[in-house]
């Protein structure tokens, strides 16, 4: 009777549903491996022209956050989507790929510089003014763990900075009595901490994340959480001096403290993301701010302590 209209309807439903399942223009769904395809050298020029004003010539940060540890994929998504003060689509097409490749390459050089901070393992001098070195000397595992920690915490710094920045946005939104932004920035705090998979806490239909997706302490670890096993490795190495082992032990405890405060932060953020009025979130925002301050202190302490190891000497 009405077979033709029903058949047409079914066809159109399948087409629209199929498109929706595919959603080809989703910035985060684009499976681009820019590192393989962009040209970092061309990207350097473009970066200087379009990005350096906000992120610094070496990506170390300014108006915008430190982007030295950001992957090509994350950079590409950010370039396309923009966010905060950063306009979307500053560079596009192949140029975006080149810039992303340049951003991707940024972490290599500075991280190497950081890991070179402790004296090289080959020099046989005793550690400066600490206890007597254990006779066997530190194992390669500890030396590598310390170097890895340098790189890890350096890359994580940009995420800590983004976290601090968004805590500021959250407080601003509270002052402006803007419940939309209060919820939105609370979602961001949680997603910066947890990384992928990101959640749509404010239920605006988009799970967004200004962070790099690695996060600080999520289900897959993160820059903070991943530090604990590395510190534990040093603390358990019988070849490492007692002073360094104690240092590593304290740092492992600091990591646990920071992870605990990050969990508190996420809990607060979840509640903030569900408030009906901005003012309802005031207490939770204060507590979230305290948690972030604790995380920043702990993180700074961990990074500073890395320089004090006599381990590799």
């Amino acid at each position, binding site marked *: 009777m009405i077979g033709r*209209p029903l058949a047409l309807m079914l066809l159109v439903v399948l087409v629209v549903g199929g*498109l*929706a399942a595919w959603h080809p223009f989703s910035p985060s769904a684009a499976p681009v491996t820019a590192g393989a395809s962009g040209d970092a050298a061309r990207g350097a020029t473009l970066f200087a022209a379009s990005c350096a004003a906000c992120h610094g010539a070496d990506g170390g940060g300014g108006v915008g956050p430190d982007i030295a540890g950001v992957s090509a994929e994350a950079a*590409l998504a950010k370039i396309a989507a923009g966010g905060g003060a950063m306009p979307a689509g500053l560079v596009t097409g192949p140029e975006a790929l080149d810039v992303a490749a340049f951003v991707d390459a940024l972490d290599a050089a500075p991280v190497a510089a950081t890991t070179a901070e402790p004296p090289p393992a080959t020099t046989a001098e005793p550690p400066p003014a600490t206890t007597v070195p254990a006779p066997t000397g530190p194992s390669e595992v500890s030396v590598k763990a310390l170097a890895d920690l340098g790189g890890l915490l350096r890359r994580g710094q940009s995420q800590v900075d983004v976290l601090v920045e968004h805590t500021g946005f959250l407080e601003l939104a509270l002052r402006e009595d803007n419940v939309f932004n209060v919820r939105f920035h609370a979602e961001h705090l949680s997603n910066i901490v947890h990384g992928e998979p990101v959640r749509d806490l404010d239920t605006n*239909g988009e*799970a967004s994340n200004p962070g790099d997706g690695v996060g600080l302490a999520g289900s897959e670890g993160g820059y903070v959480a991943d530090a604990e096993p590395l510190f534990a490795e040093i603390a358990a190495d019988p070849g490492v001096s007692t002073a360094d082992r104690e240092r590593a032990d304290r740092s492992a405890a600091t990591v646990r403290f920071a992870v605990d405060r990050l969990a508190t932060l996420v809990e607060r953020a979840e509640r903030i993301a569900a408030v009906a009025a901005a003012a309802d979130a005031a207490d939770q925002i204060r507590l979230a701010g305290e948690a972030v301050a604790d995380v920043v202190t702990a993180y700074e302490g961990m990074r500073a302590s890395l320089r004090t190891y006599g381990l590799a000497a």
Partner: protein
Amino acid sequence: MAHVPLLDIASAYADLMTVVFSAPIVAKVWFATAAVALAVVQVSTAARMWGRLRGVVPLSDAGAKRAHRWSGRIALLLTLPVVFHCVAILGFQTTDARVAVHSVAGSFFYGAFAAKILIIREHRYPAWALPVFGGAVAALLALLWITSGLWYFGEFGIGL
């Protein structure tokens, strides 16, 4: 590489929408709201064409027909940016009940619309078919708006 121009499209869309509105989602809400307002015109002029609501809709038969056609065309145009954002950028999602209902209803909307147009064009279907499919299109649009525009205004207030 094929993905890069696609990324451009998403950010070009966001740029275009934020010329007037504070965010793409706000643009979407207002386009949808305008389409729903026109859907009210659609339903009342359709009723008038079927000889109902003579007292409420002060239009001649020809006037009602013209109003129905043009409000329908404009409403359909207004849904295009909305469906682009929903379907091509956000995609089918089932985060919670509201989003899931919205996604399913959205998938059916153009299907129901296409069927309704076919029924008008080919004069060989039972008399109930047109009001049923026309009503379904209007009902789906209302459901879509309740699970998006109305929800948005309730959560975040009415603003540009």
